[in-house]
């Protein structure tokens, strides 16, 4: 394909080239909103039908782990934003530094998630695997708590899968940034992976109150 420097033949300017790729990323993210939206709708419907059981089940999740993870993930969004900022200004070393920081924070998030999953496993709160809610819970309570935990694992699991894919993308970006690939004229991969990473952060911003918080009082 015809190419002049960083500008591919089908575009007139670098600006147009960049806006085109960013628009494509946003359209992908719009489909992701609806992908997660299906799960959020399922959660809303079932929570409206079984509010008491959902509240009881939600209270058994450790709030501290979820809160720490929220802080960790928002911090990783900050370092990701700073990696994009470094690439816009052509600070090549800083790009790598901030990408690595983002990868580390993302891994910490997944590690804490793993601890949380382990606790649920030990407590027999994993749906299907010898599930039993608190001793003496009624059949109804047991069934609907299991429904809550199916949603808990489905939603946080899909979110964690996105984080793992994001970590893979970060490793690729770190490799490319070490080669000095990203410059103020060409930093589209950093910018677009950044958009993806922030999107995953937003999903968590909603998951945290819905799964951990809204039934804490009483």
């Amino acid at each position: 394909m015809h190419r002049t420097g960083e500008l591919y033949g089908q575009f007139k300017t670098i600006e147009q080239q960049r806006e085109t790729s960013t628009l494509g990323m946003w359209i992908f993210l719009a489909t992701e909103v609806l992908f997660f939206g299906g799960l959020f709708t399922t959660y809303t419907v079932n929570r409206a039908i079984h509010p008491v059981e959902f509240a009881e089940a939600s209270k058994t999740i450790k709030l501290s782990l979820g809160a720490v993870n929220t802080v960790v993930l928002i911090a990783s969004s900050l370092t990701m934003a700073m990696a994009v900022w470094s690439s816009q200004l052509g600070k090549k070393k800083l790009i790598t530094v901030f990408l690595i920081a983002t990868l580390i924070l993302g891994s910490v998030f997944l590690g804490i998630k793993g601890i949380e999953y382990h606790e649920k496993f030990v407590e027999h709160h994993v749906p299907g695997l010898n599930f039993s809610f608190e001793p003496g819970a009624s059949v109804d309570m047991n069934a609907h708590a299991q429904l809550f935990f199916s949603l808990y694992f489905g939603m946080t699991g899909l979110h964690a899968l996105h984080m793992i894919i994001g970590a893979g993308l970060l490793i690729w970006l770190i490799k490319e940034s070490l080669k000095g690939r990203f410059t103020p004229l060409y930093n589209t991969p950093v910018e677009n992976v950044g958009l993806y990473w922030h999107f995953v952060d937003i999903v968590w911003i909603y998951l945290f109150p819905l799964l951990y918080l809204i039934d804490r009082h009483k």
Partner: protein
Amino acid sequence: MSEHIVPLKVYFTVFSALMICTALTVFAAELDLNAYFSGLNIIVALVIASFKASLVVLYFMHLRYSPKRTQLVIAASVFWLAIMLLMTMSDYISRPWS
């Protein structure tokens, strides 16, 4: 016209606001707000979450500095999500037989 570069100060301010909101939402969750108004706990939690999400979209994702057509894509995705949630819930909450 080149792309807009957000000053670092803005990123740090947004980050601090996100941290404060996280603390606020955990604090609000411990209070029994439902005593004042049924469902207030959920409303407060979702309002804070939406405020946080808006900050991330506007500043970290540069929506504020993006072309109109990009903003349209985001508005459309939120609109479609609203259709899914509202249409589904208007069915479920109006079923007297279940």
